[in-house]
């Protein structure tokens, strides 16, 4: 990885994918220094500039760098599970050029100093860009509002209590109101805590047969229904994270139809897996929210197709061996996802559910726009954050080869199609598949 400023790089023989402009065509792209200088099907018709380094894409797809809007970093506080460096390496290996991290570190990201610490440490690594969420309530306790205005000025992109649901309706109402004062976004983990308290997987036949305590899908619906009413009375911008149930999708569909300022994301496990993955008590399939039924999985995929769900995020949640090698009920929730985000998302394309450009839209420009990031587009002047990938190359997911410090993938052993070949950040190649 070079640290000096890059010169001019010409990416030729590419299939350009730019959802923002609707571009899906053979062409080329030129970067100059840290920015995109030119892009288009007719570029270099008169030949490549002599001083430019040439990268022959050999027909592979060149898209804006992926933006992963839901990543749990474990630094500061749990560096044995993941660090900013290991997450940065995992991200670029997965084609992710920007990740937005949850505030559930130790210390919690609820003050200006911690926001600046994370941003500074990540910059030093020179890998995927890191943007922090900050806590919506102090210490993630769900009681008192965090200093959202000042945190936003320091660089916090949006506000969330991370893996905790803001359960008190009046607190969430005030958080939405207060955030709306500054035009800020609140991200909710929509799960009624009292119904999830002892649950470890989806409630239903599977849980009954396994003898595990379940979490009803209504836990998501109850919070989403309530929250839509709070959005309505406050006018605050609301984002539902990792939507996993059919009812949840329906609630969001109705809210959007009514014009409420609501957006949503889901993660690959929720449209690629169902509760059967829990199988023989596989703790790597113990996620929060839990993997749901096959009907829920289909509804989530349909929600992605219809645009009810705007974004696909990895929901990267590293856990070490000691947290997962336990009886199912005692194991920690969560799965790593940075390095499997693209190939599993591409299943939507290979299954004919979404055109390739639409899959990429949900991984790039959609998260950028809803978070207010100037990123996710192939256009002259934009930062040269690029992902080069072969959408068809087949491989088998093998967590032992992950860059991430933790290997807890629910997709362990899954055959997939789609491989990241090269990741470019600010004009510099930071990952190369053959390297």
């Amino acid at each position: 990885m070079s640290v000096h400023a890059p010169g001019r790089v010409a990416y030729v023989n590419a299939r350009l994918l730019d959802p923002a402009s609707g571009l899906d065509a053979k062409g080329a792209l030129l970067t100059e220094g840290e920015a995109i200088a030119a892009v288009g099907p007719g570029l270099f018709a008169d030949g490549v500039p002599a001083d430019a380094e040439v990268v022959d894409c050999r027909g592979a797809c060149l898209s804006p760098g992926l933006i992963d809007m839901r990543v749990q970093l474990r630094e500061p506080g749990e560096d044995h599970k993941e660090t900013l460096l290991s997450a940065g390496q995992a991200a670029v290996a997965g084609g992710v050029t920007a990740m937005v991290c949850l505030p559930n570190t130790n210390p919690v990201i609820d003050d200006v100093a911690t926001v600046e610490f994370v941003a500074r440490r990540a910059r030093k690594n020179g890998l995927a860009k890191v943007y922090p969420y900050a806590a919506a309530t102090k210490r993630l306790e769900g009681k008192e509002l965090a200093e959202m205005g000042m945190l936003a000025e320091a660089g916090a992109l949006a506000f969330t209590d991370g893996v905790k649901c803001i359960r008190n309706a009046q607190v969430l109402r005030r958080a939405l109101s207060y955030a709306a004062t500054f035009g800020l976004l609140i991200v909710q983990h929509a799960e009624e805590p009292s119904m999830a308290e002892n649950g470890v997987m989806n409630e239903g036949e599977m849980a009954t047969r396994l003898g595990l305590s379940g979490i009803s899908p209504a836990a998501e619906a109850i919070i989403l229904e309530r929250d839509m009413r709070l959005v309505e009375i406050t006018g605050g911008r609301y984002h539902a994270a990792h939507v996993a149930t059919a009812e949840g999708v329906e609630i969001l569909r109705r809210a959007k139809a009514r014009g409420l300022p609501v957006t949503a994301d889901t993660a690959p496990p929720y449209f690629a897996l169902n509760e059967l993955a829990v199988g023989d008590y596989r703790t790597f399939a113990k996620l929060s929210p839990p993997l749901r039924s096959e009907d829920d999985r289909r509804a989530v995929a349909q929600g992605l197709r219809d645009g009810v769900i705007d974004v696909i995020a990895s929901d990267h949640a590293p856990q070490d061996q000691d947290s997962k090698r336990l009886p199912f009920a005692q194991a920690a929730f969560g799965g790593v996802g940075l390095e499997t985000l693209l190939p599993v998302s591409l299943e939507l394309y290979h299954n004919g559910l979404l055109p390739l450009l639409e899959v990429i839209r949900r991984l790039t420009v959609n998260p950028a726009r809803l978070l207010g990031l100037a990123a996710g587009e192939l256009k002259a002047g934009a930062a040269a954050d690029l992902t080069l990938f072969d959408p068809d190359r087949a491989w088998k997911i093998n967590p032992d080869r992950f860059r991430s410090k933790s290997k807890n993938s629910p997709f362990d052993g899954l055959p997939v199609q789609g491989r990241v070949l090269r990741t470019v950040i600010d004009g510099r190649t930071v990952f190369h598949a053959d390297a």
Partner: protein
Amino acid sequence: MLDLSDSYVEKNRSADRKMNSLRGKTVINLFFENSTRTRTSFELAGKRLGADVINMTVSSSSVAKGETLIDTAMTLNAMHVDVLVVRHADSGAAQLLSEKVNSAVINAGDGAHEHPTQALLDALTIRRRKGHLGGLTVAICGDVLHSRVARSNIHLLNVMGANVRLVAPRTLLPAQAERLGVEVFHNMRQGLKDCDIVMMLRVQNERMTGNFIPSIREYFHFFGLDYEKLSVAKPDALIMHPGPMNRGVEIDSDLADDVERSVIREQVEMGVAVRMACLDLLTRSPGENA
């Protein structure tokens, strides 16, 4: 009313300020909520006019004895009082009392409802400085949600033809505030732009710990009045505050003391004159005009 108040301002500034137009009249300051400046102001106003003024501060312990607001009213009514000045933590308390007693009742602040004499003294202060109220742009900034001062000022200023703006974070604005005939802003620089009067409201400390506002420093950063935020207002814009001030919370300390811009102390002076006019008008016999 404001003209009469004006005449009392001059009188109060003269050496010979003791009058006897209310000789023999009884004024009771019935305060169910602590207040120093309003009570003192009414007391002084009554005494300047020659009335007998009695202060009753009803502490919570007296309420604990079981006497209801109406019982208290009936007791006082039996004593043939001329004016009851009432301060109460509950909205509507002054109205309830006025329905039960024969004397005149002046609302000296009820809950988050109204504080009419504060609005009158603010109007007098503005009129003496600017010559008129109509057409002026007045920005009322801060905790509108809990403020009776804001509500009374909105009503009075609207009647007098001023343009009223509210500037506050959404958590400190009451529901449907725009229905009160005001323009609502959530940003000081936008809300103060080209305004003639900046009226700051007190923010109670207990509202600053995360329920309505995350912290004092965040509040001051975005909504506290300082020279920088004031710079977008008209160059001769005046700063007002009903007191007591939280320096460094809603207002920069130096700015509060800046005699060029701040009329906060003048407001206190006008308070006595306005309350004299209120007592004067309410104790005249029917048919007697100002």
